[in-house]
């Protein structure tokens, strides 16, 4: 069993196999994402009741919560891929890392923006230095740093190993940051901030939320697979360009003495 698992993992590590497999998976995953998002948004818009306190603005939550969850999930995906890069030198791992960073950053941004749009009518301000908001903001900054490092290093495999180290250091740091931001916030402004929702969430709201969460996760995976495919092709083009340039160099070198 174990050997079989390892074998299939190694098969997947082969970029050509991955390209073939992802072509098969993508249409199904896309269909599922579209279906779930359509059903989820229909339920969220027309079926779920408006909250008795928060009114229609509660519907923002249906995007806000999945975005927050995906921002965290993609950081975890990047960290696992970073381990793959550093420990196993997995050829696909740094492709997965690189493709995940902008998607995770986008979901963190969506989470912050939807939070701001919800906060304006509810709290009367777009931004409060609430502990959770601040942690997501710092997470976004870490994402931006990782993307900046990807763009600064031009040799892909070396860039992959460097970013992997940064991602793992960030992964160790995220809980520490969360802890210190909680401390800092309770020290500065005790419990003046409204807490979202009540102690429980009614099933009429829970179901659309769960469906949308799975739908957004499918959408994010589709984006991730497409971005990985694009990155693999970009690297192939890069290799081909380098080979072609070397060939032309050789031809020129042969041409000079003649």
């Amino acid at each position, binding site marked *: 069993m174990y050997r079989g698992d390892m074998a299939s993992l190694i098969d997947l590590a082969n970029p050509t196999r991955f390209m073939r497999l992802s072509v098969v998976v993508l249409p199904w995953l896309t269909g599922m994402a579209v279906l779930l998002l359509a059903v989820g948004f229909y339920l969220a818009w027309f079926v779920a009741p408006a909250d008795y306190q928060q009114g229609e603005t509660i519907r923002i939550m249906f995007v806000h919560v999945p975005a927050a969850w995906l921002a965290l999930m993609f950081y975890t995906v990047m960290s696992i891929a970073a381990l793959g890069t550093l420990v196993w030198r997995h050829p696909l791992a740094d492709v997965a890392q690189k493709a995940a960073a902008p998607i995770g950053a986008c979901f963190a941004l969506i989470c912050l923006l939807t939070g701001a749009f919800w906060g304006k009518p509810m709290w009367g301000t777009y931004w409060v230095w609430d502990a959770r908001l601040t942690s997501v903001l710092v997470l976004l900054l870490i994402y931006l740093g990782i993307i900046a490092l990807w763009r600064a290093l031009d040799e892909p495999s070396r860039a992959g190993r460097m970013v992997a180290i940064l991602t793992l250091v960030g992964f160790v740091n995220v809980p520490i*940051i969360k802890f*210190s931001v909680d401390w800092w916030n309770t020290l500065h402004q005790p419990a003046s901030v409204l807490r979202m929702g009540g102690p429980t969430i009614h099933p009429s709201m829970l179901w659309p939320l769960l469906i949308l969460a799975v739908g957004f996760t499918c959408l994010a995976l589709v984006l991730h697979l497409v971005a990985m495919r694009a990155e693999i092709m970009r690297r192939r083009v890069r290799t081909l360009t380098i080979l072609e340039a070397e060939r032309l160099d050789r031809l020129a070198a042969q041409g000079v003495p003649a």
Partner: protein
Amino acid sequence: MTGAFLAILKRDLALAARAGGGGELALVFFLTIVVLVPFALGPDLNLLSRIGPAILWLGALLSMLIGLDRLFQGDEEDGSLDLIRASVLPLELAVLAKGLAHWLATGLPLALAAPLLGLLVALPSEAILPVVATLLVGTPALSFIGAGGAALTAGLRRGGLILPVLVAPLTVPVLIFGVSAANAALGGTVPFRTPFLILCAISLVAIVIGTLAAAAALRQSD
């Protein structure tokens, strides 16, 4: 092995003491930032003394970050990094020596200069010692988190701006506990000891993680 460690330490301290080494420049930069703050906030001494620890901490943080991109870049350019890699000294210990030298050349002077700069922001006298203590304990964390970032950007031509972008979010916990320990000494419900001990813990963890990450990054870069 101790010989090699001490040799790197001595060399980096000597380099920092020479012209353009960055040690005294960080101090001047610290002074400049502290002087700029009242121009932005207005000369209200009550306000300045209330946020004094925060100003000093922010100034120290920025001054630490400003020269860090050169920590490994010079060695990468003149080839001494290859010698360090090839020596019997484990790369982790070499990074530890370089980080220690960086702290001795920048962090320690910043912490010792803080009382003088505190006069500019009317820091209450009972806050002077806590601010110095938090800076003494907290700046090693900045040196070593920064060393990790410096190792990642050692081979870059334009490492100057990307290093603070990478490192600054990771220094959030140090800043939070440094300032809150200094403020706790001025009064409030929290005793000074609690945030101060957490700051010590963060600093120790940062020294370990920063050293390991920097050594790993330097190994990858060849």
